[in-house]
C-alpha cells in the first residue's frame, strides 16, 4: 500500500481549494448498497487496511534528529515517513538557545591556539566524567564541522563574525570558543531549516499521530501503532526499519526546562518491546531556570556578570566555589543553590535571586534582550529594576535507549538516535552545545546505517499484515478499557506526586535512605495507574487519554531512573550521592543497563568504550 498522508504533496495553489481536507487513511468507504456477506467481509478488511501504512523506513519524531534522518533516507530513494505527536516545528528542538559545538576554529583560542576535533573530543570525554563511549565521541566530534556547514548550506542563518564566517562563542567545559550559534535561537533556526528541506522533498509526515506501541515479530521490529489524535483511530505502520527519535523525558521532574511534551515516550516504548535503556540515572540539572515556569535562563546571564543572592542578601557562591564563584560549572552551581534552599536561605516557594541590576540598563538591553523578555513575560519581572527569581531545574536526559554508534539496538530493525537514545556521547554529564550536534550528526549517520542495512537486504521484507492488525486491536481495546473505567483516581494529581517524588528523592542530591522512600512512592503511584478515571469518554481528540498514556510512560521510566541511581554507589557527573561522594572507577566505570524482565525492571552493566583518553580526576 502506498498511502501518503494528507496534503503533504506539493499542490498548485489554484487547486488547493478543491482538495478536501482528509487523510487518505481516513477515506470513507463509498456505500453502494452491498448486501452479500463476501462483499461485506471485503469492506471490513479494506477498512482495516486503510489504517495500515507501509514504508521502507518509519521515523518516530519530528525534531532535529528525526528530520535529519528523514532527509538522508529519502535522498537514498527509500520510502520514508515521519510520525510525530505534534507538528514537527513544535518539537522541543525548537527551544534550544545557546548553540552547536564544532571545531571550525573560526575564533582562535587563548594565545592564538587553534581548535581541532581531538580537543573537542577530549573536552567531551572529560565533561562526561569518562563515561562516554569514546568511539561515538570521536565520530561526533570529527563530523561536527561538516555538520554545521551542511546546515549553513541548507539555509540556517548562523550568526557571523566580521570576516563573514560562522560565529562561535565560549561555553562551559570547553577549551575553545567552539559553540556556533544563531543568536539565542539556534534550535529554532536549525529546526526550521531542516523542516524546509523535508517539505521540499515531499516527505510524508503523520502529524498529531501518537505512537502507542512497537510491533515486533520473531525478535524483529516490523513497525508500530499510533493513535491518530484527531479521529481517535488506531493506525498501523509497517517498515523494514524503525527509527526512534522522540527526545528526552524532562517532564518526569516537577521543574524542568523541557517542553511539556517531553515525556520519554520513545524510551518507554522501547523498554516494552524488550530493548534495554542505558545510564538512566544521569539527569542534568541546570542551575538557573525561571522560578515558576522553569524556562531556561542561559549561563550567559552570569557570564555577563550576573550574581546569585540568597534570602538574606548574601552572595553565597563564595562559600561553594571561592575562585570561580557564580561561574563555576553547572553541577556545582546547581548543588549550591539547592543547598541554600534546603538550609532555609531561599525564598518562600524555593528559589534564590539572580541579580543583574548592577550591569545597568544599557548592557542588559544590548546583550541579554532575550533573558529580559523572558523575565518580563513569564515572571513579570524586569531585570533592570528587580532581581530574577531562579531555581535549578531538570534540563537534559543523558540516558536513553541503549544504541551503538550506528543507532542499532538489540532489537533487529529498530534504531534510536537523539536525546531519546544513549549512543553515549555525553556519559555522566553533557556539555552545553553537544546535544544539538548529536541530533544532526547521528540523524544523518544512523540514516546511513539504515540505508546500508536495507541495501544489504538484511532487513526483513515486511508484508505480514496480521501482526500489525493484532497490535492495532490490542491498543484499541486497551484504550477502550481505560476509557470505560469508573474508578476514582485523578491522573493529574498522580502526575504531580510522581514529579514531586522524582525531584525530591532523585534530584540533584541522592542517598540511599531517601531513594528507598522514593522507590516505595513510585510503587504506590504505579498501583494507582490502573485506578485512574478519565471523564472524557470519546477517543477523538481526547487530550486526557494522551496525557494518561504519557503518564504511563513516565512512571515506567521513573523506575528505571530510580533503580539505576540506587545501584550506582558513587558520584559521577550529574549523579551526586551524598553517601558515596567520590567517583569509583574500579567499581563503576561502566554503563548501567536497565531492562524489563517478567514485567520487572532489572539492572545490569556493560563496559565503557575507552580508547583515546585515560580516565583522570575531573578538575576545572
Amino acid at each position, binding site marked *: 500500500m502506498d498511502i501518503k498522508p494528507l*496534503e503533504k504533496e*506539493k*499542490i498548485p*495553489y489554484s487547486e*488547493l*481549494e478543491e482538495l478536501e*481536507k482528509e487523510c487518505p487513511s481516513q477515506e470513507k468507504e463509498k456505500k453502494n448498497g452491498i448486501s452479500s456477506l463476501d462483499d461485506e467481509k471485503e469492506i471490513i478488511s479494506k477498512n482495516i487496511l486503510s489504517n495500515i501504512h507501509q514504508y521502507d523506513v518509519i521515523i518516530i519524531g519530528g525534531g532535529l534528529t528525526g528530520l535529519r534522518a528523514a532527509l538522508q533516507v529519502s535522498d537514498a530513494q527509500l520510502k520514508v515517513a515521519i510520525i510525530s505527536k*505534534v*507538528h514537527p*516545528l*513544535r*518539537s*522541543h528542538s*525548537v*527551544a534550544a538557545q545557546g548553540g552547536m559545538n564544532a571545531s571550525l576554529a573560526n575564533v582562535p583560542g587563548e594565545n592564538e591556539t587553534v581548535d581541532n576535533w581531538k580537543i573537542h573530543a577530549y573536552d567531551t570525554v572529560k565533561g562526561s566524567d569518562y563515561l562516554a563511549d569514546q568511539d561515538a565521541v570521536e565520530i561526533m566530534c570529527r563530523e561536527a564541522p561538516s555538520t554545521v*556547514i551542511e546546515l*549553513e*548550506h541548507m*539555509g540556517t*542563518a*548562523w*550568526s*557571523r*563574525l*566580521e*570576516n*563573514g*564566517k*560562522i*560565529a562561535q562563542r565560549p561555553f562551559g567545559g570547553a577549551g575553545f570558543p567552539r559553540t556556533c550559534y*544563531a*543568536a539565542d*535561537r539556534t*534550535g*529554532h*533556526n536549525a529546526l*526550521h531549516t531542516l523542516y*524546509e528541506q523535508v*517539505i*521540499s522533498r515531499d516527505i510524508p509526515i503523520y502529524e498529531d499521530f501518537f505512537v502507542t506501541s512497537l510491533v515486533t515479530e520473531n525478535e524483529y521490529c516490523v513497525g508500530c501503532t499510533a493513535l491518530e489524535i484527531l479521529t481517535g483511530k488506531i493506525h498501523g505502520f509497517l517498515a523494514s526499519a524503525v527509527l526512534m527519535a522522540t527526545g528526552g523525558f524532562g517532564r518526569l521532574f516537577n521543574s524542568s526546562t523541557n*517542553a*511539556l*511534551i517531553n515525556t520519554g515516550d520513545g524510551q518507554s516504548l522501547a523498554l516494552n518491546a524488550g530493548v534495554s535503556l542505558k545510564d538512566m540515572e544521569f539527569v542534568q540539572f541546570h542551575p538557573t531556570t525561571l522560578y*515558576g*515556569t522553569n*524556562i531556561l535562563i542561559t549561563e550567559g546571564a552570569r557570564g555577563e556578570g550576573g550574581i546569585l543572592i540568597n534570602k538574606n542578601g548574601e552572595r553565597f557562591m563564595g562559600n561553594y566555589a571561592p575562585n570561580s564563584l557564580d561561574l563555576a560549572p553547572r553541577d556545582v552551581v546547581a548543588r549550591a543553590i539547592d543547598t541554600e534552599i534546603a538550609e532555609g536561605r531561599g525564598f518562600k*516557594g524555593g528559589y534564590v535571586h539572580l541579580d543583574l541590576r548592577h550591569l545597568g540598563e544599557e548592557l542588559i538591553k544590548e546583550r541579554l534582550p532575550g533573558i529580559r523578555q*523572558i523575565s518580563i*513575560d*513569564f*515572571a*513579570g519581572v524586569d531585570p533592570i529594576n528587580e532581581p530574577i527569581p531562579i531555581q535549578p531545574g531538570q534540563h537534559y536526559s543523558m540516558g536513553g535507549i541503549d544504541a551503538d554508534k550506528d543507532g542499532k539496538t538489540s532489537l533487529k530493525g529498530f534504531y534510536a538516535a537523539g536525546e531519546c537514545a544513549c549512543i553515549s556521547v555525553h556519559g555522566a554529564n553533557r556539555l552545553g552545545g553537544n546535544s544539538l550536534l548529536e541530533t544532526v550528526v547521528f540523524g544523518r549517520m544512523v540514516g546511513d546505517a539504515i540505508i546500508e542495512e536495507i541495501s544489504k537486504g538484511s532487513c526483513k521484507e515486511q508484508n505480514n499484515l496480521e501482526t500489525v492488525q493484532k497490535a492495532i486491536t490490542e491498543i484499541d481495546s486497551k484504550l477502550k478499557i481505560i476509557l470505560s473505567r469508573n474508578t476514582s483516581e485523578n491522573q493529574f494529581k498522580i502526575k504531580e506526586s510522581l514529579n514531586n517524588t522524582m525531584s525530591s528523592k532523585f534530584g540533584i542530591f541522592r542517598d540511599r535512605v531517601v531513594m528507598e522512600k522514593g522507590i516505595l512512592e513510585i510503587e504506590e503511584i504505579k498501583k494507582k495507574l490502573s485506578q485512574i478515571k*478519565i*471523564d*472524557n469518554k*470519546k477517543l477523538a*481528540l*481526547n*487530550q*486526557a487519554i494522551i496525557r494518561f498514556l504519557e503518564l504511563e510512560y513516565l512512571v515506567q521510566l521513573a523506575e528505571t531512573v530510580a533503580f539505576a541511581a540506587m545501584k550506582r554507589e558513587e558520584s559521577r557527573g550529574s549523579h551526586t550521592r551524598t553517601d558515596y561522594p567520590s567517583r569509583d572507577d574500579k567499581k563503576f566505570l561502566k554503563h548501567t543497563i536497565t531492562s524489563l524482565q517478567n514485567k520487572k525492571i532489572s539492572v545490569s552493566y556493560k563496559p565503557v568504550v575507552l580508547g583515546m583518553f585515560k580516565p583522570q580526576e575531573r578538575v576545572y
Partner: protein
Amino acid sequence: MKLKVFRYHEGMSAPHYDTFSLEEEPSMTVLRALFQFQEQFDDSLAFQYSCRGSVCGACAMLINKVPRLACRTQVASLLKGEQQIALSPYPALEEKVGWDPSQEVLVEPLPHFPVVKDLIVDRNAFFKSYKFMEPVIKPESIPPKENLMDPSDLPDLELYTNCILCAACYGACPVDGENKDYLGPAALAKLYRFHIDPRDADNRRLEKADINNGWWACDFHGNCRQVCPKGVPPIMAIGQAQAELMEKKEKSEDKK
C-alpha cells in the same frame, strides 16, 4: 478571576462558553489557566501546546479578542487592563458574547480557520500557503566551506527568520478573513525572507506571489505586525516587495 472558554466539538449544534473560577497562581499564564480548567473542571477541553516558552508557536489563540500566544500572556496583566492592542477591526473581533474584562479572560479559537474542537483549529490553509512559497534555499553552487555572509546583512534577515509560524497574524488579518485565497502575512514574509537571503540564487522569488492573492491583496491594516509575538513585520516585507516589483516592471517597460 475567571476564565471564559469557547467550547465546540463535532456534532454539537452550536458552540457555547464555559466559565471557570481560577485558583490564583504566581505569574499565571493563560496556558496555565487552561491546564487548570482541564485538570480541575473538564478533562475534555482541547487546546494545543508544547514548549510553554513562546518559541514553538503551538498555542496561538484569540485572547480577549486579540490573537496571542496563550503561554506568553499573563492572566493578571490582562485583568489589570494591560497588554491592550488596538487592531484594525474585522468580524471575528465583534462581541458575540458578553464578558467582563476586569474579572474574566476570554479565550477563543484563532479566527479564520475551521474549528476542530474547542480551541483547536485546522491550520492547513496556513501551511498550504507556506508550502506554496517553496520555502527552501536555492543556492547557485555549494562551496566547500560555509558561505561567507556580511554580519550587517543579518539583522534584516533575522527579522523574518524569527517567525515561529504560529499563525497569529493570519488570525489577525482582515483580508484573510474575507478572502480565503489570500496567501496571508506569514507566508509572504517567509517568501521575502528567501528573497533577501544573500545565499539564495532564485531571482524570481518575488514573482511567486505576484498574483491577485499575493502581495497585491494586502490592505495594509498592519494587524500582523501588531500581534506578532516575535516582532516579525510582514507588512514591511509586503510593502517592500510591492515597491521592488513595481520598480522591476517599470524598468522592463522602459526597455521595451
